[in-house]
């Protein structure tokens, strides 16, 4: 087995892969969220932004998409394999084990991650390809959003995903700094201010779109 194979076989190696792909994906959600906020600058601005990404710089968009697809595949594969190993590492469970300090966020990483993956596939089919959209328009991206979130179940599904994304980022960003080894020694290593701020900013930023439509602020 080569050096790369050994690295991928090791539990620490897989976690480092999850950390690196996690950094890429966190960078993406921050950019995606910032871009989305142009929704509130009106239909013209938002549609022009969509046109920029989907036509003017489509080659660049595909490079980013390719990177993201590879990142998601690696992130999910490593997470699945590590989860299976971790389950196997405790063949007989305790009758009683009380979590002492682990956060709710850390305990939702697995099923929350599955929800986010389902959400991701739906989301691409919803707003990128239009398969799941009732009245998809190639050029009217602003309208696509405004129509889609009139449906309360759809808006709730998105808001649920954003709540889980917040939890995922709250644990993931903090854990990532430790997995990649750049967190400095701390008197209180469980503290995670940067992760908290980023988790709130990203999830609230995204949630503003469905919230504004479903609550009737944007028509």
């Amino acid at each position, binding site marked *: 087995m080569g050096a790369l194979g050994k690295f991928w076989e090791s539990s620490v190696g897989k976690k480092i892969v999850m950390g690196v792909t996690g950094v890429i994906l966190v960078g993406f959600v921050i950019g995606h969220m910032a871009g989305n906020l142009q929704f509130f600058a009106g239909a013209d601005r938002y549609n022009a932004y969509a046109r920029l990404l989907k036509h003017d710089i489509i080659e660049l968009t595909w490079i980013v998409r390719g990177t993201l697809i590879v990142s998601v595949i690696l992130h999910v594969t490593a997470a699945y394999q590590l989860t299976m190993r*971790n389950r196997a590492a405790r063949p007989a469970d305790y009758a009683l084990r009380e979590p002492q300090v682990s956060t709710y966020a850390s*305990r939702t990483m697995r099923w929350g991650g599955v929800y986010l993956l389902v959400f991701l596939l739906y989301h691409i089919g919803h707003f990128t390809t239009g398969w799941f959209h009732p009245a998809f328009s190639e050029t009217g991206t602003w309208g696509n959003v405004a129509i889609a979130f009139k449906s309360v179940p759809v808006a709730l599904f998105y808001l649920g995903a954003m709540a889980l994304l917040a939890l995922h980022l709250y644990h993931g960003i903090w854990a990532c700094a430790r997995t990649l*080894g750049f967190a400095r020694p701390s008197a209180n290593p469980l503290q995670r201010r940067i992760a908290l701020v980023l988790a709130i900013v990203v999830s609230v930023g995204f949630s503003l779109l469905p919230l504004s439509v479903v609550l009737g602020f944007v028509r």
Partner: protein
Amino acid sequence: MSAGLNLTLHVWRQAGPNAAGRMVDYKATDISPEMSFLEMLDVVNERLIESGGDPIAFDHDCREGICGMCGVMINGAAHGPMKLTTACQLHMRTFKDGDEITIEPWRAAGFPVVRDLVVDRSALDRIIQAGGYISAPTGSAQDANALPIPKQDADEAMDAAACIGCGACVAACPNSSASLFTSAKITHLGKLPQGQPERYRRALSMVAQMDLEGFGGCTLFGECQEACPKGISIDSITQMNRDYLWASLTKREEKKVAGAG
């Protein structure tokens, strides 16, 4: 002398490594609050023997909190409810009259149950054997002050060196990961000049052995740090990951013919 405690114990009983185990209830009556947890088990065992029963097997040795033998899961927490202590240093005054106490062995694929509350922790020894040492040449020891070590490094190395190998980190971890144990040794030796020559080879081989023993991976729940009777920080896991990453990036082929001098 305060009044004795009357407790109900739920204890894991298992006759041997391959036997099926089950939880068995015992009454522990008139237990002195001044007893240690292990002394309470001693009393229960005395009475079991007197009544012709089979005493509960549990590991113990120094009974002063430094040998690492006595870990058990007590009411869902490794070494019980008191922080920074081993089970032998946990005293019965921590409990109230009428309490129910669930006592279980460490649960991990890497820690097979030998009998009742006793598990085989030799997997931890094999992780140490994989690289948790320094190779020192023979001869007279050089003067200790000849190697300057920054105070902070010395402190961090000493904190990590406090590990007693009890296995509470593995037991408390939802993934049964031995990351805190392994990383404590990697940090202890990696912070000191004597540990440098083997530092990166050590990270690779100890992590490989840790995986081989069937322990899970770290997802940074943080439970290990809370359970550790010696208060070892998850900062050492960060150190292990950093060393492992650097070791993987800079690994060189070992020469087959050269190097003989």
